[in-house]
């Protein structure tokens, strides 16, 4: 009899799913309790979460560490800027597919070339291509050059029906749009991981060499994942345009890509919800740092250093660390961290 197959990276128990549901409820309730400033901060955090989540499809699920992912995010935001006329906002149902499409096309081109390489090479090549996109927006006047540009935010509208809010309540509308997108993205990725396609990605992460030897054209699977991840980064970038109404080259800079990687590590590489936690934590940390000191980058650098040195499993590793320090007879629960990818045999 075929054994039960746990789906990697998703909660393994009912309490796990319950915890996630509670998180969603908490996020949904925030606008009722918090002042506008924190609602907007929450939207920023959820955008970061979507970016990190989209990257997790590559890093945690497939084992592809890309340093150019932020470029697709920024490209999507710039696409909204370029598509929007100077005086009027476009409805979401037009701008979102456009942004995702642009990000997807760029990801297809970059991926087709980059995925011919592996490991360190792949890292550097994705970095370089990301820089290429950065160059386009930084060194030319296409997107307003180094200063960036303002744009008229896309409207929360679809096929004639528009959600019109008074100015003061617009951030709340934007917040819920972001929340819905985040939940939908998580749900969609969860279904993907459950599918046969998701199994292949997991196999590639564990031992790509053997996957090829079994008969999988792994290049095609990786490319599909790369394009999908790029499009999802595009969703996040589009949301940024809706949220801030402003684009600048920092959005496509490689520091953004590195931050996305950090959020994944912070929240835990082995789960799908980890990047979300990591993103919320990172944005929260940035806020706290700004309240305490002018040297925000210094605090951030020290935190990253600490996390990498002390917590190789991210925040979810805090539980393991705590048990090791304080001692506990209980076996750690939850999905174990994924094993390192196995190297192909020599000779």
């Amino acid at each position: 009899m075929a054994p039960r197959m746990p789906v990697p990276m998703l909660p393994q128990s009912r309490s796990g799913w319950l915890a996630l549901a509670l998180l969603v409820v908490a996020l949904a309730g925030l606008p009722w309790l918090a002042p506008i400033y924190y609602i907007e901060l929450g939207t920023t955090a959820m955008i970061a979460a979507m970016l990190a989540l989209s990257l997790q499809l590559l890093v945690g699920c497939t084992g592809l560490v890309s340093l150019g992912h932020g470029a697709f995010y920024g490209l999507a935001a710039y696409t909204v800027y370029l598509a929007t006329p100077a005086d009027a906002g476009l409805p979401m149902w037009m701008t979102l597919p456009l942004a995702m499409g642009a990000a997807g096309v760029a990801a297809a081109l970059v991926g087709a070339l980059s995925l011919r390489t592996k490991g360190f090479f792949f890292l550097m090549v994705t970095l370089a291509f990301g820089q290429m996109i950065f160059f386009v927006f930084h060194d030319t006047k296409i997107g307003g050059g180094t200063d960036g540009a303002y744009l008229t935010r896309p409207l929360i509208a679809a096929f004639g029906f528009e959600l019109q809010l008074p100015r003061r309540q617009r951030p709340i509308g934007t917040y819920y749009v972001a929340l819905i997108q985040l939940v939908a993205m998580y749900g969609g990725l969860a279904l993907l991981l459950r599918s046969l396609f998701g199994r292949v990605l997991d196999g590639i992460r564990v031992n790509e060499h053997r996957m090829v030897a079994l008969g999988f054209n792994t290049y095609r699977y990786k490319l599909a994942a790369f394009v999908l991840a790029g499009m999802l980064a595009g969703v996040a970038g589009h949301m940024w345009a809706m949220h801030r109404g402003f684009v600048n080259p920092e959005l496509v800079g490689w520091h953004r890509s590195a931050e996305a990687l950090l959020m994944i590590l912070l929240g835990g590489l082995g789960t799908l919800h980890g990047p979300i936690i990591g993103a919320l934590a990172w944005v929260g940390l940035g806020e706290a740092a700004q309240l305490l000191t002018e040297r925000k980058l210094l605090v951030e650098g020290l935190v990253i250093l600490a996390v990498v040195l002390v917590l190789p499993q991210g925040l979810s590793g805090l539980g393991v660390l705590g048990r090791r320090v304080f001692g506990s007879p209980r076996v750690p629960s939850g999905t174990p961290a994924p094993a390192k990818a196995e190297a192909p045999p020599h000779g």
Partner: protein
Amino acid sequence: MAETRHGRTPLLATRGLGRDFGGLTAVREVSITLSPGELHAVIGPNGAGKSTLVNLLSGELAPSRGEILLAGQPIGDAPVWQRVHMGLGRSYQRTNIFRSLSVFENVRLAAQAVHTPGRRLLRPATRESAPADAAMAALARVSLADAAARIAGTLAHGEQRLLEIAMTLAGYAKVLLLDEPLAGMGPEEGERIAALLRDLSTEHAILLIEHDMDFVFAVADWMTVMVDGGVLADGPPDVIRANAAVQQAYLGGHA
């Protein structure tokens, strides 16, 4: 034991196959054939080119010269993954399984590779019975069905070698390339594998690389002796055993 080769079209054939690495010729002009139902062993001292030969056949190395034909079709240019779909399966000398996945998942992936048309890719893995059934059948064949739920890395070495073979079976390969399946195993386990291989050779053609001479002479229908990248002798076991050149070069006290 399989029937004689004559009159049977070979399932796998090489013609003048060779591979160089810079100035070093690892495999010279090797021409061998593998017929359906045959258990064909390739033996030779270390450095004879056996591993290179297997890598050429599986596609992990590109040939410098010569041809490889699978069921009459030239496959020398075909990438590794494509050869699997044409009926070639390969196991590894150094165990190359998915250690952190379950035994079942190891084999299920192998089955999925050849069982799943593209349009079913987005369906939940649990609902697709074809790869799961093929996986359990393959595990049963190598007597590992009870271990299906265990994590592959926790299996004993001998069981991991069996898992290697199961993975080639789940892919429905017609030709099995087995690279030292006995590596690191004790004598009783060797018996088990010998029985398994004899059983498998009724449905598959098997090309086997091995060092254990007792084992090879006990199971093989046909043998090829390689020395220095070339074929020294090629024939049924008795002929090979009696061959003076082979005795001198390799067999020692096995006359």
